[in-house]
């Protein structure tokens, strides 16, 4: 199953645990690169992470990539909101 699914991402066979693992690893590597260059929204980094991006796109389905990229933006916004809420909490306690 492994060689079968990894050879073509667009077939309808279910991804295996290995497939998922590989996709998550390349995603994490790509996002780490984005963090290094200070970019939140994928695609705005120019050519800075092209190697990681290629790996990422080679191991994850497009729908997954869209989903992970979107979630990264949401998670960053959430982090900011949480930080602001904490600050306000601290200020209110004083």
């Amino acid at each position, binding site marked *: *199953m492994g060689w079968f699914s990894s050879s073509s991402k*667009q077939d*309808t*066979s*279910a*991804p*295996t*645990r290995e497939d*998922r693992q590989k*996709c*998550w690893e390349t995603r994490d590597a790509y996002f780490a690169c984005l963090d290094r260059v200070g970019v939140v929204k994928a695609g705005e980094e120019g050519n800075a992470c092209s190697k990681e991006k290629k790996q990422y796109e080679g191991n*994850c*389905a*497009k*729908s*997954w990539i869209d*989903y*992970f990229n979107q979630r990264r933006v949401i998670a960053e916004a959430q982090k900011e909101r949480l930080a602001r809420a904490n600050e306000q909490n601290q200020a209110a306690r004083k």
Partner: protein
Amino acid sequence: MLSLARCSLSSSLRVRQIPSTAAWRSLHTPPRPFFQRGTISGPQQPKDLLRSLFKTQRRTYAQFTERNSVGAFTPTAAALFVVTGVGLAFYFRYEKARLEEEREKERAQKSYGRPSVGGPFQLTTHDGKPFTEKDLLGKWSLVYFGFTNCPDICPAELDKITAALGKLREDLGCTFPGESQHGDIFLPVFISVDPARDTPSQITQYLKDFHPSFIGLVGDYAATKSVCKAYRVYFSTPPNADPKGDYLVDHSIFVYLMDPNGQFMDAFGQAITADEVVDKVNEALENWQKQTGKKV
């Protein structure tokens, strides 16, 4: 009257017999001088007045307090008081415990507010057999809705169920993944919310990564919609989804615990860990065993 008889007779005159109610009343009010009393108590005067003058002792306030200290509070009375008090205390405590127990029993038996989750459905298992809600009976089932192309949440939830099942079966003395000494009382169920792409064979492949006792279920779009409605599950697949398409399905991600009667027991969200699932299932199992005397 006992108290009156015990009165000390220091003078030559005798104690006038007064009714007990009067005696009690006199405890609280200082005695009036004799003549004043005589003028009030009508029937006694005037002939009786003279006779009682010789019979009656004029009691002073001091004598009354003395009588009170030895009279009303005798050892017998004190003992009676204590015994009654202790008895009442025990009685009330017993009654309170009994009522509480009764209320608790009532509460346990009442299945008020049980959410209406679950219901009839007709689907096909991953190995091509028909499967309805009746096939859930006689086992504790953990029902999860998802799709095989799910990027991260579904596999994480299925891993959680797998881990919880391993622990639960171990607790029951089974040698994972073999059969347990109690028989296999758990049934993990994966219901696809992506009927366009999730074929039985694809689900078979997908479930190989999770607990071997998993049963995968799939149906056509109408059957999927119907089972999702019964379990109050939202899913976003359109009816005309492309079987070759690359899309994600948005869906509710609760794990439902159903009892051996096929009734909803609990729902576990994403934030609940495998260990918490184990605890909650064990708790439900214990309650069930207490009520029915059996495990399934």
